[in-house]
């Protein structure tokens, strides 16, 4: 039997635009990555969601979070 440990419903990583970086005080369970522009933000979020097998969610204030469901 494969025992797989994972954190669910927890913010695994946060990707913010530079101008929104002051909106995030602490990164929750994961680190905060600052992206130069929205293109880079999308790319970082895509990579992180693939790596963590999480889903990227948009808080609509320049902050994207990756959550494992």
């Amino acid at each position, binding site marked *: *039997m*494969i025992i797989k440990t994972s954190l669910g419903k927890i913010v695994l990583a946060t990707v913010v635009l530079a101008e929104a970086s002051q909106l995030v005080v602490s990164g929750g369970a994961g680190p905060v990555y600052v992206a130069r522009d929205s293109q880079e933000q*999308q790319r970082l*979020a*895509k990579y992180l*969601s*693939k*790596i963590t*097998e*999480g*889903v*990227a*969610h*948009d808080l*609509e204030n320049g902050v*994207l*979070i990756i959550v*494992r*469901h």
Partner: protein
Amino acid sequence: MKTYFLSIVLTASLGGILRLLILRSDYRQYPTYPHGYISHLSLGFIAAALGAVALPALLEEEFVAVTFLAMAAQQFREIRNIERETLASLDSIELVPRGQHYIEGIARTFEARNFLIIACALALSALDLAFFRRYQLPLRAAGLAAATLLIYFLISNIAGDKRLEHLADIRQGKVHFQGPNVFVDDIHFMNLGLEEAKEEYLNKALGLVLVPKTIDAAATLANIGQRQAIVHICAKLLGIYKDVDSPEFTPLVRRQIKSGKLGVLIIPATRDPQALIAAVKRVPVLEGSVSKPSKSHAGRERDDYQD
């Protein structure tokens, strides 16, 4: 006991054949492997033999033999556990799992079918001893075979499961976005952050709306196990568009709290709305999710209750 030998052999084998007839392998993909067939057929044959022996044993006043039926019941209850364990361990590696609830339903069916076979074999042996025994073997076997077929048609028509189309009106809905939030008509599903994922949804996703016909249907459809069964079957029948690293494409069923209607959002491998509607219509209503508030006094007092 010699006088009953032929009767026991005939009814036991016909019962075993009946088990074969109702052991279907379909889109549920279970059992598709030969070993599954072998174990179920042999258990079915044992069940039929038990049913076939019961009546002759009573006629011979061998009352102890009846206690064997109790032991058999215990044995068949074990089948349910085995089925449940097997399916549950397989379920953990499914991209879109069946869900515990659906598995429980399947396991229960397997158990119940063995009891059904005991009862049918009992009925066949009663028929044989009371009626067909006086005829020659070919006629006797043919008569019993005809009775078996009759029982088969009765089982397959009466024991037919309820389907989702009996509970809800199913129609296609429009998949659209409001900001990062994806909707089917006015039912909210989730927040998607990736532009790529949004595009995939806009181009490929299909949405359905299930409007429950009664307050009972609304209560049944709210069950999470029932909803998991819907997405599992949709994903199985229309193809899965997802891998472990793309959980955002997991098909979802969401409930609109206000009206109790359900929305289904799925990216199928083949984009065919009619096939999707047909698939959802045929989803079995799981026994454990059925609830009937309309049967209670309080339920009938509700504003939304209709006769």
